[in-house]
């Protein structure tokens, strides 16, 4: 378990790829610099999509938490 406190959580469970990444991008678009967005996704593709996009956009992927049937991604806006 991580102790990171997110500023916003986006629940994209059930959405097919690239829905979760697009939901994350939408949340980051509206966030302030330094805010942490938590993305909940059960899409396998998110495990590669999210780190690749975070790196490309210069945002930091702080943690990936493996939960029972989904993953939680913590991304800090640059």
């Amino acid at each position, binding site marked *: 378990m991580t102790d990171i406190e997110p500023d916003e959580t986006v629940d994209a469970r059930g959405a097919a790829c690239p829905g979760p990444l*697009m939901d994350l991008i939408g949340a980051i678009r509206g966030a302030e610099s330094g805010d942490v967005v938590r993305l909940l996704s059960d899409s396998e593709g998110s495990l590669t*999509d999210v780190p690749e996009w975070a790196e490309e956009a210069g945002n930091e992927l702080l943690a990936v938490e493996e939960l029972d049937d989904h993953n939680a991604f913590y991304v800090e806006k640059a």
Partner: protein
Amino acid sequence: MTERVVIVGGGTGGTVLANDLADRLEPELDAGDVEVTLINDDPDHVYKPVWLYVPFGQREPADGRRALDELVDEAVDLRIDRVTEIDTDARRLRFDGGEPSMEYDHLVLATGSTLEPDRVPGLAEGGHDYYSESGATALRDELLEFTEGELVLSVVGTPHMCPAAPLEFVFMADDWFRERGLREDVDITYTYPIQRVHGNPHIAEWARPIMEERDIEVETFFNAESVDSDAETVTSMEGTELDYDLLVTIPPHGGVDLIEAAGLGDDGWVDVDKHTLEAEAAEDVYALGDTADTGVPNAGSVAHYQAGVVGRRLASEVRGRPATATYDGKTLCFVETGMDSASFVEFDYETPPSPAPPSEKLHWSKLAYNESYWLTARGLL
């Protein structure tokens, strides 16, 4: 007692469903046991795929418009009005302008997508689109005069209507400029928000080599953050800046506010069971087409197939029988790959798409379907 079926939205999904019910429930409608009402805020039905051809001077927006009262069966009560509130507890709709409210027993939401260019600063001023009638005619005026420079096609967000249309536009533009001997003077760049050129990996794998072959530049992981219409630049969240002489965008899309206000889902899309199309947050409410958050493309064929499923389910419910019809994710698209060639894809929740080799025959099939679309809207095809 008369059962009231109310459909909100007179696009492909709502219109096909209204005509489907008029046919399927004919005995009950004749006997006065059922009423079917279709509500739309415009007296016309619009076939949006026509807009793809408008910028190239090949079709007129009027080719995609017909009066709803000519398309909808006379057994359906057609009401031109704007719904402003959905109360799923009282099963009641309220209207613009203080008109009396309307109660329903079965509600179907087919309110479609709206364009939200204001979400990106500068986009409305600097960008053109072919996802609206006014946008398509304004783009036509620019494109017909455009003989050299940087043409940028930017997909600003997903989901958006017709996921194939951005690919179609750049393939058609490439071919159109080649035919006119202008291609060497026009650079075409295509941008997409994720790491490939289309949301569906199978379609992306098919399209990418065609783009390379035809010298269409690609920028992936490009989420437009702002447009500077004076400097003619578009900048992404990822830090890339592109110069343009003509910027064509697929603006961000949303649904309608009254869906979120009714607690049926976020961003104007209704959370549904993706097989039954029943709303998760309310009883006796269905959603179809773009309005239903199923993860399948926002496409006319989807709305068409879903309307058939909802029609069968509603007929069962009205007759007091268990509703068993389900939607399997079926999607069918012709994809233009030039001015006289097209591909074709068909897929569902379980089966991925496998694009057909582009051919002139498929291009003519697409044009033939566009002409016969009015039979689809009438529920005949």
